[in-house]
């Protein structure tokens, strides 16, 4: 904690904490994205496939995020639902170069949206069309249409093309999320 933060905390201006669930198929880059968002000194050097989940923290301009970074491997996906209830926002990561599995990603998303803990809540959904740097990567517009996002009802959503290795596009997404959550709270 820097001096300013300490002061802010002492004065009761502590940043608001929010719970975010980060999901998406395996190898889509979830852990890499979150690692990139963390302060430099607590970043990992090498990233391995997640088994189960891991809790990470990072901050944006106005919020402090606690992220449950879930494992995307097939056999762990049915464990996501244990964490739906407390989520205040969802980050859904898609590997935009993996055209073949886009339908699988869509399928997982549809299941998520129809889950009772998600269905009737106005949760903001942030999509990252990740790995934009790869040659075969689809544009975010293309990803959005393959995922059928235009049909997404009653939930604010946003899609960003991103490159988790450089951090490109990530902050745009996080700022969008911050605005959404704050306006949610105002209402």
């Amino acid at each position, binding site marked *: 904690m820097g001096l300013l933060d300490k002061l802010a905390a002492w004065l009761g201006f502590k940043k608001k904490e929010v719970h975010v669930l980060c999901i998406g198929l395996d190898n889509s880059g979830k852990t890499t994205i979150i690692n990139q968002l963390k302060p430099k000194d607590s970043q990992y050097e090498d990233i391995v496939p997640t088994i189960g989940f891991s*809790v990470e923290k990072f901050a944006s301009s106005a919020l402090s995020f606690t992220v449950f970074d879930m494992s995307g491997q097939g056999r762990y996906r049915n464990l996501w639902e244990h964490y739906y209830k407390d989520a205040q926002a969802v980050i859904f990561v898609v590997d935009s170069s993996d055209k073949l599995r886009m339908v699988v990603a869509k399928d997982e998303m549809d299941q998520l949206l129809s889950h009772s803990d998600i269905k009737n809540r106005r949760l903001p959904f942030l999509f990252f069309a990740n790995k934009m740097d790869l040659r075969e990567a689809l544009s975010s517009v293309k990803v959005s249409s393959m995922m059928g996002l235009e049909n997404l009802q009653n939930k604010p959503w946003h899609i960003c093309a991103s490159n988790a290795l450089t951090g490109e596009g990530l902050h745009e997404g996080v700022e969008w999320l911050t605005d959404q959550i704050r306006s949610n709270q105002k209402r």
Partner: protein
Amino acid sequence: MHMLKRDKKDEEDGSSNPYANLEKSAVLQEARTFNETPINPRRCCHTLTKILYIINAEHEGEHLGTTEATETFFAMTKLFQSNDPTLRRMVYLTIKEMANIAEDVIIVTSSLTKDMTGKEDLFRAAAIRALCKITDSTMLQSIERYMKQAIVDKVHAVSSAALVSSLQLMKTSHDVVKRWVNEATEAVSSDNMMVQYHALGLLYHIRKNDRLAVSKLVSKYTRQSLKSPYAVCLLIRIACKLLEEDGAGHDSPMFDFIESCLRHKSEMVIYEAAHAIVNMHNTTARELAPAVSVLQLFLSSPKPTLRFAATKTLNKVSMTHPAAVTACNLDLENLITDVNRSIATLAITTLLKTGSESSVDRLMKQISSFMSEISDEFKVVVVQAIKSLCMKYPRKHPVMMNFLSSMLRDEGGFDYKKSIVDTIISILEENSEAKEAGLAHLCEFIEDCEHTSLAVRILHLLGREGPRVAQPSKYIRFIYNRVILENAAVRAAAVSSLAKFGANCEDLLPSVLVLLERSLLDSDDEVRDRATLYLSVLKQHQKVLNSAYILNALNVSIVGLERALHHYTTEPSDVAFDIKSVPLETQPITEQKTPGDAMQSKTADKIALSRQDIYSEQLSAIPEFDSLGPLFKSSSMPVELTESELEYSVHCIKHTFSNHIVFQFDCTNTLNDQLLENVTIHMDPSDGFEVVNYVPAQCLKYNTPSTTYTCVKVPDDPLSVTSTLSNTMKFLVKDCDPNTGEPDHDGYEDEYVLEDIEVTVCDHIQRVMKPNFGASWEEIGDDNQIEETFALSAKSLAEAVKNIISFLGMQPCERSDKVAEGRSSHTLYLAGVYRGGHDVLVRSRLALMEGAVTMQITVRSTQLSASEVIASAVG
């Protein structure tokens, strides 16, 4: 002090245990708060404690179901967002406890790997332990890299945790852990005591099944002189095990190493080495001496642990090598008054074993001054010391008896009381002068005895021994009191005991009849049935009936009887149940006991009792032997038919049936490049014996024992029952690859000559115990009696007795296998059942004249040919 006492009492009441009245549902409800934000670490810790309590107090009926557990587990995983160290450690504990009750616990894998590789040293070791607990062999690959790193981590706690967890993982994933040998080896050179110890432990367990690798390991580290005393202790244990397995002598470098540890600078190591040497099977006085002298030094150490350890070990040595301990007597004397009563007890009991007869009284007085202060466990040690003393100094029995009887009156648990009763019984059985005093003490004991099994045993003993003392009537009152005052099991035993007095003593019969009649209306079936049976038998006034139904009861195997009756009821037939078809109870073979091995022979008895039942089961599963009838007898020790360390090893056990003998051959193939098939043992019988059939061993793989049987018919002539049979093992050999065991397609016939097998009189007789030999002798009568006189080659009466017993394989009764010292004549009573179910009794009168033993043998049997076979066998 007063306060302290009260606190302790409160604890016992349970009133101060805040978790005593937890309700599962309320606690699970509370666990939902794990989902709330922000997390309140203090409250969550408290809730986790309650959950742990519930999991571990399952006996109280609050069982945590899988669904509940899984739900709670997932709620708990959310606590990973808090970095509160206390809470996190509680989370680790909960993960470990729930690993086997909740589902999908691998969900925390990444969270734990993150902690174990993270910066927070406080988390790392605990995270490793939790991680290994939830990881199965399929998941292990994914954390292997981290485990290897952790093993060589520079933080000692991390390295130790990784090593110990690896040891746990070995049980399920030996193959993966095996690959961590290099890391473990590196950890052995750590300068931390625990890490070095744990690393050596892991290395050893990885190689445990490879004898050669283990011995390399030991010789490597004995040369390197490890820093950690714990590691050295472990090395001593490994070396000991190797020595034991190899049967190596004291010239082995392993032994040198252990002995050199006697001069180590750490007391722990010195003790371990001394303890190891003392416990080796083949230790002689020469190796013992240095070990005993370091223990002697410990006896005067200011540290109570060292004094305790040394006394305890010396106490053990004094059973096997009393002479070696005598040197420590002076130091042990000093410990008699040690403030630590456990040490004092061990010291005194050691002295009792090593000291002279004259010191016994003094030591006993000393020990009785603080008997009330020591725990039951040590009281048992005292009792055992008394037991062996009585064997050594029979003349001391009055002192001992008094001491034992006062101990019987003291407070104490079952084990303690049982050991006293055992000791009194064995003293009065060994020593006829002690009999009346012993019985009197036991009578007094059962007046107020809360242990049914002990009361039953004593009543049985009274029934057997009581009628034979000068004035049997004095016991009747004690026994009859039991009939009035006790539970059903004790009443039944008392009724049986009374009946024996009635059967043995004419003058007591009328009163016994009156007393038994009172039990005819007992509320318990068993008691009533016994009283009814005994009354009607006794009223016949026939010695034969008394002997058969009261004094010498059934001698069948209980398991066998149950099986036969079950069979009889499931397959009804018009023929009455034949008690002769039930296999006999096998008598444990009791050698003359030496004071030291009293304990060992106890356990051996148990095995001997069930052995024949096991064989009987195995044989009845083989269809070829269906028609042979019930198993009569199995020979007690397997006979080796091959010299050791040759190509094949074969052991034979003989199973006798009414008209057949089945030879069971347990074969082992010690050649790793051969596979044998269709293995049979061909027997070449003579003397009228005929082979009926063979049951081959289908396949005999390297080092996997297998069994083949040969069934032989006994000659019809009742007098030809002994023979010598020669044997050849025949089989088909297939060469095979020593590594994979893969055999060639074709094989060739081959054979292998084995040593001969003797069939002796022994094989036709089963030992049977007749508690009242005289009554049985009368019962059988002299119809088929044969009497002969022989001169024996034995030099002493004891030797003659031993030879006759082993030759005939019959059960000595009335403790007649013991020859009183200094006598010139002795009578040996033997009982058995001859093949076909005929009772056989032998009375053998022995006389020693001018260094030679002559014997007059009288055989009685319910069948003449049996008498003849036995009488002629000795000649």
